[in-house]
């Protein structure tokens, strides 16, 4: 079970990112818990400046723009 957090104020790209993560997890057969973090304070505290940002199990892996599909699978698989 991996905990994935998507940091972003709720813009369209953040929604898309969350959907991409769920899809990739389903493809890989990895169980994930996707949590959206929309509070600007929490986003800043996580060290994210460009949204959407992604962290996997507490480790920040991505910030700014939609993630690359291949990389996304690598983060979820590791």
């Amino acid at each position, binding site marked *: 079970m991996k905990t994935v957090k998507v940091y972003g104020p709720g813009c369209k790209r953040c929604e898309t990112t969350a959907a991409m993560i769920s899809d990739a997890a389903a493809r890989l057969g990895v169980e994930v818990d996707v949590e959206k973090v929309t509070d600007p*304070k929490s986003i800043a505290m996580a060290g994210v400046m460009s949204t959407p940002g992604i962290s996997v199990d507490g480790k920040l892996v991505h910030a700014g723009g939609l993630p690359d*599909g*291949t990389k996304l699978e690598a983060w979820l698989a590791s």
Partner: protein
Amino acid sequence: MTTETRADPARPARADLLWYVGIPLAAIVLWFLYSQLIPFSEWVTSRLPVARHSHAGEAIAFFVYDVPKVLLLLTGIVFVTGVLRSWFSPEKTRAILPGKREIAGYPLAALLGVFTPFCSCSSVPLFIGFVSAGVPLGVTFSFLIAGPMVGPVGLGLLYGIVGWKVATIYLVFGFSIATVSGFVLGRMGLERYLQDWVQALNAGPVGDLPEERLTLVDRLKIGVEQVREIVGKVWIWVIVGISIGALIHGYVPEATMLRIMGGEAWWSVPAAVVVGVPMYTNAAGVIPVVEALLGKGAALGTTLAFMMSVIALSLPEMIILKQVLTYRLIAIFIAVVAAGILATGFLFNFLL
């Protein structure tokens, strides 16, 4: 389009080649279409049951010429900007700014503001990220003002539609306003007017991401992605802006324009700012209006003031910034930037 090359470094060539050929080809097609705009718009207007030099004929010709022109220009500029910006990121910018000497910090921040990609929806985390990393408040403001004020998209459109003189003046003064406003705001010691929770954050954690290595093809993809996203979002503003521009071009008599926005009417500069601030549109939407205004004899200073206040100061952005700034700080921020815009407007009305 996610998997082709990355997985197998042995044969990257095929898909990459497609990009190296496709992008120049697309550029040539855009260029060709662009060169056909005047004959196209004249042809369309001539097919309609209106006299070419009637009010309606002028308005329609303006509209039919400008819509494809702005959209083509926008596509090209957004692509180039997207590729250029792929070398920049808020994280890199934040790493550069804190160490800089005060005076050099402001123009540098303004310059980085022009090239660093960020959307207004992430301006709050960006603001906090900067301030908590020790970037001075004034320098952060220079960055935030310059981004929308002298963005490459607005400048490129201004250059293509209104001409290089106005575009250059806009660039120089927009950049100066961003630099000087940040400097003035920095001198005012406004830190205590940040929201309490922002003040309480000191030296927030810096997200250390591994640096991504992008190939040229990755950057071209980013450019195309930007075109899809931005042109897809902005086209409606373009249509609205051009419609307003067409109405001005076709129906507003020059004498009226001179009376309202001419150089003699000194009050027109503050009026342009007061009207412009609450208005919100993208640069792509306001430039066709600017084109029509200037064409009808509106004074350059008044028009610049209008354009700057529409683009640089917007209500939705203030509402977003309200999460980190108190009303008092927002008011001071607006006042300082508006003062710079007013000064620019008066200067050009006085000079020309």
